[in-house]
C-alpha cells in the first residue's frame, strides 16, 4: 500500500504520457492530435514537479513563518516548458489552417489518399 501511494504520482504521469502518445499516434484528425500533444507535454510537467515536492514544505517563496520549502528548480524549468508548449500549439494550429485551405481536409487518411492520387 505504501508503495502504491509512494509511486502513484509516477503511475498517473505514465498513464497521461501514454494516453497523449496514443492520441497522437492513433487518431487521424489533426486538431485531436494537437490536443493529445498538449496532454503529453503536461504529463512531462507532472514528471518534473512531483519529485520536487516535499511533504510538509511550502511553496518556494521565502517567508519568516516557514522553514521547509519545496524544490524551486523544477518550477523554473517547467515555466519555460509551458510557454514553449503553447508556442508549439500555436504554430501547429497555423499549419492546420493552411493545410485545410490547401486540401480541404484535416484527416490523416484523407490526406494520404489525396497524396497518393496526385
Amino acid at each position, binding site marked *: 500500500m505504501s508503495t502504491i501511494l509512494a509511486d502513484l504520482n509516477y503511475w498517473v504521469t505514465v498513464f497521461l504520457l501514454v494516453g497523449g502518445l496514443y492520441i497522437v499516434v492513433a487518431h487521424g484528425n489533426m486538431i485531436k492530435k494537437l490536443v493529445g500533444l498538449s496532454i503529453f507535454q503536461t504529463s512531462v510537467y507532472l514528471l518534473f514537479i512531483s519529485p520536487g515536492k516535499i511533504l510538509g514544505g511550502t511553496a518556494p*517563496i521565502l517567508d519568516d513563518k516557514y522553514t521547509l520549502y519545496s524544490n524551486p528548480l523544477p518550477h523554473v524549468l517547467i*515555466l519555460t516548458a509551458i510557454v514553449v508548449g503553447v508556442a508549439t500549439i500555436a504554430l501547429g494550429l497555423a499549419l492546420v489552417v493552411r493545410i485545410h485551405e490547401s486540401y480541404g481536409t484535416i484527416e490523416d487518411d484523407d490526406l494520404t489518399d489525396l497524396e497518393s492520387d496526385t
Partner: protein
Amino acid sequence: MMRDTIILRVVVKLLLPAILIFALYVQFHGDYGPGGGFQAGVAAAAAIILYGMIFGIPAAKQVVPPSVVFVMIPLGVLIYAGTGVAGLLLGDNFLDYSPLGSKPVYGQHLGILIVEFGVLVTVSSTMLAIFYAFGGRADEADAAEEARKDGEGGS
C-alpha cells in the same frame, strides 16, 4: 460575431480594467509573490482577446492597432538582450546584472525588474498577434461565406 450579448458586453466592460490591473499587479509583485512576466503577459493579452471576442476584432484592432503589436514583439526581446549587453558593457559577464546598481544586490533587483518587463512586452504582444492572425482568417471566412450565400439567395 455574436448577437444577443447584452449581458456579456456589460460584464466585459466591467471586467476589462480589473483584468489589466491584475496583470500589472502580478507583473510587479513577481518578486514578492507568485507571478512574473509570463503570467502577466498572458493575462494582459487575455483581456484584449476577451474584448475582441465580444465586440469583434475590428473594435479590438482599434484599441490595440496591429502596427503597435508588431513593434512590441521584438521590443521585448531587445529589452531583455539589451540588459544583458549593458551588463557586458559595464564590465561584467553577459546577463550579469551586478554592475547596474550601486551595490550588486540592487543591481540584481533592477536587472530582474527590467528583464521581466521585457518578457511581459513580448509575451503579451505575441499572444495578441497570434489571435489577430487567427481571428482575421475567421473574419475573412465568415465574410466570404456570407457573400456566397447572398449571391446564391439574391440571384
